[in-house]
C-alpha cells in the first residue's frame, strides 16, 4: 500500500476557494439537467465496463453477422424463396440488444450496488432530473452506437452475401428503413434496461428480468401460443423492425415500434415513480 502523505502535522484550511472560487456562486439559477448530464457523461466514460461492453457489442455483432450471412451462401434456388438479405445481415444486432440493454440496466443498478446512488442523490436531490439525465445519455449514446453498428453490419453482411447469394442495397424499398430502425431499436433496448434497472435496483435481478422479458419470454410464450410470441421485444426487433420481407406471424412495423416504445415508457415511468417514492 502506498504511504499516504501525512497531513496530521500540517494545519490546513479547506478554504482554498479564495483562489478556486467555489464560494463565488455560479449564478442565481440552480443545479439542473445541464450539470447532471455532464456528470453522468463523466460517470459513463470513466468506467472500463462501458468500454468493454461496447467492444463486446461491436465485435460480437460483426462476428454473428459474418456467420449468419456466410451460412446463407451457395444454397439451391428454392432455399432463397422469401430470402431477406437485409434481415440476414442484421442478425448480429441481437448481441447488441442484450449488451446495450445490460448497459442500460447497469447505469442505474450499479449505483445501488456500489452505494454511488447516495452520492448522486445528495449532489442532485431532484431524482427525476437524475433519471432524465441518464435516459438522455444512455438513449442518445446507444442511438449513435446502434445506428453506426447497424449500418456497419449491413454493409458487412452484403459484402459477404455478394460472394454467392442475393444482396440488398439501401436504395431498395424498405431497406434503409429496416437498417435505420434496427439501430434505433438498440437504443430502445438500452432504455428498457435503464427502466428495469430503476425498478429492480439489484444488478443480477434486473439483468435476469431484462433477459427474461426480451429473450426468454418469446421462447416460453411460443411454446404456449405461437402467435403471442410476436409481442416480445426481441421478436418485434428481429421480425418486424429489421425485416424488409414481411415475416409470417409478425407484427406490422408501425405496431411493433409503438409497442416497443410503450414497453420503454412503462419501464421508465415505473422506474421514475419508484425512484421518487423509495428511500435511497
Amino acid at each position, binding site marked *: 500500500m502506498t504511504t499516504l502523505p501525512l497531513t496530521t502535522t500540517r494545519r490546513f*484550511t479547506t478554504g482554498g476557494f479564495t483562489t478556486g472560487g*467555489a464560494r463565488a456562486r455560479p449564478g442565481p439559477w440552480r*443545479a439542473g439537467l445541464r450539470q447532471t448530464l455532464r456528470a453522468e457523461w463523466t460517470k459513463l466514460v470513466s468506467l472500463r465496463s462501458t468500454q468493454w461492453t461496447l467492444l463486446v457489442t461491436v465485435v460480437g455483432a460483426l462476428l454473428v453477422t459474418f456467420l449468419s450471412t456466410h451460412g446463407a451462401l451457395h444454397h439451391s434456388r428454392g432455399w432463397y424463396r422469401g430470402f431477406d438479405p437485409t434481415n440476414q445481415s442484421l442478425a448480429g444486432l441481437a448481441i447488441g440488444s442484450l449488451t446495450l440493454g445490460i448497459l442500460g440496466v447497469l447505469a442505474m443498478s450499479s449505483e445501488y450496488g456500489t452505494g454511488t446512488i447516495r*452520492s448522486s442523490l445528495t449532489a442532485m436531490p431532484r431524482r427525476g432530473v437524475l433519471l432524465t439525465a441518464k435516459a438522455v445519455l444512455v438513449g442518445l449514446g446507444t442511438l449513435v452506437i446502434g445506428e453506426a453498428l447497424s449500418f456497419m453490419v449491413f454493409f458487412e453482411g452484403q459484402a459477404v452475401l455478394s460472394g454467392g447469394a442475393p444482396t440488398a442495397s439501401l436504395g431498395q424499398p424498405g431497406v434503409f428503413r429496416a437498417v435505420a430502425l434496427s439501430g434505433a431499436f438498440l437504443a430502445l433496448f438500452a432504455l428498457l434496461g435503464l427502466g428495469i434497472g430503476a425498478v429492480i435496483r439489484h444488478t443480477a435481478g434486473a439483468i435476469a428480468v431484462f433477459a427474461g422479458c426480451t429473450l426468454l419470454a418469446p421462447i416460453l410464450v411460443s411454446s404456449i401460443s405461437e402467435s403471442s410470441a410476436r409481442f416480445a421485444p426481441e421478436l418485434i426487433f428481429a421480425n418486424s423492425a429489421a425485416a424488409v420481407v414481411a415475416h409470417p406471424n409478425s407484427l406490422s412495423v408501425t405496431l411493433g415500434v409503438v409497442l416497443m416504445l410503450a414497453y420503454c415508457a412503462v419501464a421508465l415511468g415505473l422506474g421514475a415513480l419508484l425512484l421518487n417514492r423509495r428511500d435511497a
Partner: protein
Amino acid sequence: MIVTRGLTKRYGKAVAVADLSFTVSPGVVTGFLGPNGSGKSTTMRMILGLDVPDAGSAYINGSAYTDLSWPLREVGALLDAKAFHPGRSARNHLRWLAQTNDIPQNRVEAVLDIVGLTAVADRRAGKFSLGMGQRLGIAGALLGDPGVLLFDEPVNGLDPEGIRWVRHLLLDLASEGRTVLVSSHLINEMALTAERLVVIGRGTLIAETSVDDFTANHRSDAVRIVTPTPQRFVAALSRAGARPSVGDDGAIVASGLSSADIGELAAGQALTVHELTPLRASLEDVFMELTSSSIEYRSHTVDDAAAHDALPVR
C-alpha cells in the same frame, strides 16, 4: 445550521427515529451520539433527503435539502465509506461529483491534496483500503466548500494517524465557522472534538447539551479507600453520612463525601489510610448509563457487574 423538528421514521412496525428535534449550530463540532442501531444514520439520511420521514422535517439553513439550489456547495456529507463505484478512479469520482454542482475542477485537486490521496488519485477506488475510502468520502464532502458538514462515523477504518487527522479536520472546519455534525457510537472519541452533544437512543432524544454540562450533570463522584481496618472505616463513614460499600478486593467505595472530607475524617478518628482515590464517572459511563435502556443489540458479559465499575477520570 441544521434543524430537525419532530423527525420520525418507521420501518414496518419498528420505529427507527421517533419525534426527534434538535438544532446544530455553526462554529462548534456537534457530536451525534448513540449506540449502534439507535437511528443516527437514518436521521442523517433524512436530513440529506435520501430517506423521506414519516413525520416531521429537517432544514439546512432554513430550507429542506431537496430545495437547495447548489446542494454540494451548501452541504457536504460523508455517509458511508463506500459511496463510490469501485471501478472508477478517485479523481474521476470527484470530477463527476464536482460537475453536478458546477464546482471548478481545480477544487478536485485541492481536496485530493487535503485528504492526501493525490498520489493514488488515478487508481481504481475499489483497490482502496477502508481508510483510503474514508478519505475519498471526506474529499467528496469538502468538494463544494460547504458551510454545513455531516460525517457519519468518520474515523471508521482509519489508523491512529488518520484518526488524529480527522479530529484536527473537524476542529478546523468548525473554527472556520461551519456547522459540523459528527456521528459516533464512541463517546470518548467525541469528547476530544465535540463541544456540543446530541445523544439519542432508540431513535429518541436523550440529551442535547454541551459536553461539559453533560458530564457535570451526570457526575456521580465516589472515593475509593484502601485501609487495613475496613469495618471501622465503613462505620465511621456511615456515621458521617456517606454511603460506603466494600468491593470484592476489600477496597471501600464511598459516595456522598469528598476525598478531602474523608481524609479529615480518617485523621480525626486515627484511621489508617493506604490509598484514597477520587473516582469520577467518565463520559463513557454516563453515556452507557443513559443509553443502557435503549441499546438495541445488547451483549451480555460473564460478569456484568464489572462493567459498571467506575473508572478514574481520563
